């Protein structure tokens, strides 16, 4: 075991997977000599060389498009998009190509690759360094969408994503890149995709969350405990394919659900969780399903701390459903 930050875990995983499988390659802007603007790929260029750690020209559609070609040919590329906000030039390649290669070819052309990107607000990044775009990808059949919240999960889920036979969008909560430390198993560590994690057990209310909102949910749960409300926090981890049994099992136990996501409220991923619970567990509900989400505005700079859901906002929702 080693104590690591999420960023260190990502770096450790990439190194381990590249040692484990010669087909794993990394590409993106500034990932080589510079080790990545967040240092996620630090040291990889020195160990594996420029053939396997490629600095690319400035084009996200190129990074992803080239990665697709490599994956079709038999490599296992891990493409880095510097900030999820910049992924949109690659959206055509992701949605129309990457997600559909296996399906449209009748299984002849699987396209296993990982596109990893730091996402989410909290680093004073404004409109273009703070977006939470997971919903765009969760809405595209053929993609898997994975978001870790702990260093151990960052390692295990990234390793599993790299080894997965399907294309994975791996979003890293950059707000907690360095602030959350945790024990990470050394050597090989795989966390299966499609399985949620019970971050905290409780009887009264379930809070569903992922990524940088997990620490917020846990903080709210602590505050709720002081008021006698036992909160269960379910860390979804994989948005697609979702661990629906875990989602339903929790709300059937507590009867009260709060769905937390920092992305804009409308059509955010949490809306899907709400719909599933309403459709399949209504008879267990003691209160309406309440969402705590970002506002339906572009992500602000100065008022970022007002925008981001905090423990207080989550606690208000917890109390609302508990006292319904």
């Amino acid at each position, binding site marked *: 075991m080693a104590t690591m930050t999420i960023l260190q875990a990502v770096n450790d995983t990439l190194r381990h997977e590249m040692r484990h499988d010669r087909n794993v*390659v990394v590409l993106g802007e500034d990932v080589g000599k510079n080790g990545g603007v967040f240092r996620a790929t630090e040291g990889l260029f020195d160990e594996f060389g420029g*053939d*396997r750690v*490629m600095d*690319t*020209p400035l*084009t996200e*559609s*190129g990074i992803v*498009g*080239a*990665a*697709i*070609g*490599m*994956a*079709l*040919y*038999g*490599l296992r*590329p891990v493409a880095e998009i510097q900030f999820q906000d910049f992924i949109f*030039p690659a959206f*055509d*390649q992701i949605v*129309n*190509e990457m997600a*559909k*290669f*296996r*399906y*449209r*070819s*009748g*299984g*002849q*052309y*699987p396209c296993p690759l990982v596109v990893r990107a730091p996402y989410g607000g909290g680093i004073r990044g404004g409109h273009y360094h703070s977006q939470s775009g997971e919903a765009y990808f969760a809405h595209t*059949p*053929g993609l*898997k969408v994975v978001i870790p919240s702990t260093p151990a999960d960052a390692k295990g889920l990234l390793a599993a994503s790299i080894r*997965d*036979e*399907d294309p994975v969008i791996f979003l890293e909560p950059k707000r907690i890149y360095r602030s959350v430390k945790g024990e990470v198993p050394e050597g090989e560590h795989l966390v299966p995709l*499609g399985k949620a994690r019970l971050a905290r057990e409780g009887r009264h209310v379930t809070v569903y969350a992922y990524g940088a909102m997990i620490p917020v949910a846990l903080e709210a749960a602590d505050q709720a405990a002081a008021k006698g409300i036992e909160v269960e926090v379910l860390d979804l981890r994989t948005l697609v*394919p*979702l661990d*629906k049994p875990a989602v339903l099992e929790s709300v059937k136990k507590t009867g009260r659900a709060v769905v937390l996501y920092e992305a804009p409220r409308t059509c955010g991923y949490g809306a899907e969780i709400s719909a599933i619970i309403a459709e399949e567990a209504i008879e267990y509900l003691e209160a309406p399903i309440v969402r705590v989400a970002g506002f339906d505005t572009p992500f602000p700079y100065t008022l970022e701390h007002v925008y981001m859901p905090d423990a207080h906002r989550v606690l208000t929702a917890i109390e609302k459903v508990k006292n319904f």
Partner: protein
Amino acid sequence: MAEPRLQVLREDGMLSPRPAGGLPESQLLRLYEAMALTRALDERCMLLQRQGRFGFYLPSSGEEALQIGSAAAFEPGDWIFPSYRVPGIFLWRGVPLDEMVCNLFGNSGDLARGRQMPVHYSFRRFNLVSISSPIGTQIIQAVGAGMAARIRKDRTVVGTYFGEGGTSSNDFHTGMNFAAVFRAPVVFLCNNNGYAISCPYERQTASETIAVKAKAYGMPGVRVDGNDVLAVYEATQQAVDRARAGEGPTLIEAVTFRMGPHSSSDDPKRYVPKETFEAWKDRDPIDRFRRCLMQERVLDAARDQAIHELAKTQVADAIKRVESLPPPPLASLFEDVYHDMPAHLLEQLRALQEEEKAKGKFTDTSVAFPL
């Protein structure tokens, strides 16, 4: 005794058209037969579409030299990222007609399982990468595959095809740039056939030629007569050799003309001047190659007729063999989305199976494709 090759001097002492790399007679005939088969498939498929047998077809008439000449320059192990207008490459590589036609019908014999519209072929065992509708996306993917081949130190060369319309796409720019920066073993083949649906060359680019754009990216650009099958072969062969020798990518612009409509839903009479069309009719690549082969006594009228008849028969027979195959089964709708079918898709499949029981049959309410 060695195969007779085309002469350089005819018996009357006049210079003969020089064959590319001194191709043997058998190879020349093979090129011609493949061009004939490509045209036969096209003509029959347009008819079938008009008869409502399948919903859509995209002809490549007039571009047979470009397709076959270039395809012949690659090795079977080379990867091709095609556009949707180069079925001749598939035929050259030996994709069975039955499998091509099954794809057009989208029936249970289709390797792509009826997932896409006609002509979006996919044949892994022939290293022909699946075709999609968005323009140009294959270009950068081809470069990625080339980069992978280089990393692996394989001798693979990657070819990719696109129209002059495709050169306006983001991924043309990205692909050309990547290929040159990474010295990828890629041959870029631009079918400059004059029109992108109704958009003529002059409105697609203000550049004098497509080939000249190569210079901006740092690679050689070659402009070739796309209706001269031997010239296309030679140009492609040189580019393939360069790539295989580690010398990097080349852009080839093959100038030709789209003698047919963009697709079965298009009417080029609305935008192609009659004189343009007539002028290009005189440059038909099959007629031209026939004249050469006749002149060189590789072909005579009887043999020529036999070749075209055989092509038509082969197409007709393939259609007869597969036209009654049923559509793919319902469950196939949910397969291949992922490697393993996830729980939510299994649930949706079960729900659909229940619906089928209740309905008995699903009614086709789709309208005709308009493009």
